[in-house]
Structure formats: structure tokens, C-alpha cells
């Protein structure tokens, strides 16, 4: 009998101990793993530059018609690597997990149509290289003409994007979002666009550049004239990686000066006019 009790006691103890150990993972310290020494020649020739990006964010980083990973940001990052003689390593990640990936050192930076506004203090930022306007996309001929017309309507948005943050609690357009009938949050814009086509939602809040890619020449969709918001894109680094950030900034200037940036931008007509680097 005594034996039984002891057994029960121990196994009960184990049951509680195990989740506690797992729980620690959630609230562990935020001591960061800095990759590479910060010495001057740490980023010399042959350095492996780990470009962290969302592979589902056309036209900045995506899979092209030939099945290759490309995009404005990918091409620009590759140009920077070529400039310094670095090895380019693609690190595609899930956008939701970008901060953990960056802090844990699986990548050197977040460079994937990454909005600065609202995150100014969270990262070490490179210079901004692109404007990014948030717009409302509707079907042509829709009764929605202004932002005010969205009252009571179903609006779709992709989670963790700047359009989403703008409409979410404490965002710039939180009040507007409150007038919506419903704000539908999708894991990706492709799904939202399919639902807009099918009439399940009335409008999509989206970055205009991503929206242009989504529409891709289809003529049945248009933006409202009123902008939802206006932001800038830059590259986000770990706060201690100032040496790397400086190097990237230098390279961006050099590539803007020799016309490389303009050349890469010309591959993506839908965002060309928004690229601010070298203008």
C-alpha cells in the first residue's frame, strides 16, 4: 500500500514537472545569440550572408515562373553579396516567426518588404529603400468608393502585414476597422484574393505593391482613391550588428550610384515607381 502511494506520488510529480520544463521555453531569457565576431574583418570576402525572407511575398521575395527564388529584395541582396564577394545564403522563413529566426541567428537580417513604421525601436534599421502605400482593393463597379463606404463590409487582410497592423488594435486605422462589418484575417493574400473573387469578402486591405502583383493584369479590380496609409521599407538587423548594417548601407549607396538598383527595379514594373533608393 505504501509502495503504491509512492509510485503514484512520483508519477504525478513527473506529470507536473514535464510541462513546467516545456513552459520554460516560453518564458526563457531573451539573451541574444550574436552571429560572428564584430571585428572589422568579420564581414570580409567569403562571408556567408544569410538573407532571411518570406518566400510568399511577391514581388519582393517569391518563386518565379521558372521555379527559382527571386524578387526585388532577393536580387538586391545577391547584388550586395556580389559587391563584397560574399556567399549568398537564402533563409526562407515563416513571416510569423521572423523575430525568433533573427534573434536565434538562423539569418543575418529580415529583408523582405519589411515595414519600418511602428517598429522603429525594435530593430537596427538600414536606410529605407522603398515606399509602401496601403490601399483598399475592391471589385470594379463595387458600391464602395471611399473608406467610409467600408462601414458594415467584410474586409480581408493578411496576418502580420503592415495593412493588418494598421487596422489592428492600436493601429493608425483602428477606428476605421471598427466600422467594418468584419475584418477577416488570412494566412496569405492569395486566399483573400480568391475570396474577393468569389464574393465572400467585399474588399482587401493591402500594400499597393503586393496588390499590383496579386491583380497581375486582371482588369476587374481597382483601388480606392483614398490611401489607407503610407510607410517605408528597410532591412532589419539585430541591434548589435552595427558593423553589418553599415556595410549593407554602403553597398546600397554604391549599387544605387552605378545603376544596379535601377536595373533590378526594372525587372519589377509594378513596384518600380516606389523604389526610393538613389532617387
Amino acid at each position, binding site marked *: 500500500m505504501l509502495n503504491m502511494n509512492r509510485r503514484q506520488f512520483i508519477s504525478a510529480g513527473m506529470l507536473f514537472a514535464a510541462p513546467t520544463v516545456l513552459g520554460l*521555453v516560453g518564458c526563457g531569457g531573451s539573451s541574444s545569440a550574436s552571429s560572428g565576431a564584430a571585428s572589422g574583418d568579420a564581414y570580409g570576402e567569403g562571408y556567408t550572408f544569410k538573407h532571411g525572407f518570406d518566400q510568399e511575398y511577391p514581388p519582393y521575395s517569391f518563386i518565379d515562373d521558372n521555379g527559382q527564388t527571386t524578387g526585388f529584395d532577393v536580387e538586391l541582396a545577391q547584388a550586395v553579396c556580389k559587391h563584397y564577394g560574399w556567399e549568398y545564403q537564402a533563409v526562407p522563413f*515563416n513571416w510569423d516567426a521572423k523575430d525568433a529566426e533573427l*534573434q536565434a541567428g538562423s539569418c543575418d537580417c529580415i529583408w523582405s518588404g519589411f515595414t519600418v513604421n511602428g517598429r522603429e525601436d525594435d530593430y537596427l534599421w538600414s536606410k529605407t529603400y522603398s515606399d509602401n502605400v496601403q490601399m483598399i482593393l475592391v471589385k470594379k463597379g463595387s458600391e464602395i468608393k471611399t473608406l467610409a463606404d467600408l462601414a458594415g463590409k467584410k474586409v480581408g487582410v493578411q496576418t502580420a502585414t503592415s495593412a493588418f497592423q494598421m487596422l489592428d488594435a492600436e493601429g493608425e486605422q483602428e477606428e476605421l476597422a471598427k466600422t467594418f462589418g468584419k475584418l477577416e484575417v488570412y494566412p496569405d493574400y492569395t486566399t483573400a484574393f480568391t475570396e474577393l473573387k468569389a464574393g465572400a469578402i467585399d474588399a482587401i486591405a493591402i500594400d499597393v505593391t503586393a496588390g499590383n502583383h496579386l491583380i497581375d493584369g486582371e482588369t476587374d479590380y481597382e483601388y480606392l482613391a483614398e490611401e489607407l496609409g503610407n510607410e517605408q521599407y528597410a532591412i532589419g538587423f539585430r541591434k548589435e550588428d552595427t558593423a553589418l548594417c553599415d556595410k549593407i548601407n554602403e553597398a546600397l549607396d554604391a549599387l544605387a550610384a552605378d545603376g544596379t538598383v535601377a536595373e533590378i527595379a526594372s525587372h519589377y514594373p509594378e513596384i518600380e515607381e516606389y523604389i526610393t533608393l538613389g532617387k
Partner: protein
Amino acid sequence: MDISTMFSTMSVGMLRSFGIFVLTLVGSLPLGMVVALLKKSRFVVVRAITSAYITVIRGTPLMLQLLVWYFGPFYLFGMNIGNWRFPALILGFVLNYAAYFAEIYRGGIESIPVGQYEACEVLGYTKTQTFMRVILPQVIKRIMPSVTNEVITLVKDTSLAFTLAYQEVFSLAKQISASQTSFMPFVIAGIFYFVANYIVEFVMKRIEKSMGYYK
């Protein structure tokens, strides 16, 4: 992007999915047996730890476990996880499936009547001989349908690797779908999983048949 390019791009992902599938089975099928035997151990502590392991693994989503294995080393110990993505993935899958297999094995082992153990003892078999020559062959036959179930689930569960952004067939389908604004990649992925499971079912049926030598 035409269908053939889409297919060839995704075929790389299919190989990766297949890799997860094979490595998980190779790791978890034997490990499950070890866990099942540990759960029947003479030592209270060993039994308790094993039960706790099974309870925690079965009680939490695999998706969450994958995140813990991948990001855990950083959040707990501040380690750099540069090349840890794939090992973490396999570790997560193997430990998860081993827990389920262990319970299937245990069910099989406990379904053998005590009389058989007594008979073996009378005939002078050692414990190891009893288990290996009398019990295990019957256990394997009995648990085949449950194992097949688990293996089929595993084929589909490989898609959970997308949580760690591992570029297997489902991740690629999502990404190609995003860039091409097309649903086709998901159709291809669906066909891939279906065909893979069709093959698994066929193979497992053959194995079951080959073991039905007393019927």
C-alpha cells in the same frame, strides 16, 4: 508558370517530404519499442518518466513541439540555431511518433494471454527467448492495422514541417500559390499525398498478407 515547371519545382519538395517520412519511421519504429518496454520496466522512476513523456507528447500539438525543438535551444540556452532546422524537425517527428508507436506496441504486448508466458516458463524459455520467439511475432501481426493507420497519418503530417519553413512539398505549394495566384500547386500537393498513401496502403496490405501464414 506552366504545370510541368510547377511540378518539377515541387518535386524537390516531394523528395524532402519523403525524406522526413523515411527518417521518422527509421527513428520512431524502434524507439517506440524501447519506450513500450521502458513503460513495463521494474523501476518506478523509469515507468513514471516514460508515462510522463507519452502524456506530454500526446497531449500537445506536433506543430507546437516542432517549434519548441527548433527555437528551444535558443530561448533556453541562447544557442545559435543556424543549421538546426532539419535536425530539429526530425527530432520532433521521431519523438512524437515514437510515443504513439509505443502505445500501439504496448496494446499488442498486453493482448497476449498470460498463459503463454506460463507455458514458456514451463518449457524452460528465458524471458528474452519468450519475448523474441513467442510474444513479438504475434504482437507484430496484431498491431499491423494500427501501425498502418499511424504511417498513413505520418505521410500527411509531414506537411507540418511548413511551421519551421522547411521547403517540403506543402511549403512550396503555398509559396508557388502566392506568387502565381493559382490553386494548382495545392491540387498537385493533394495528388502527391494521395498517391503516397495509396502506395503505403498497398505495401502494408502485402506485408499483412505475408504474415498471415497460419490462416
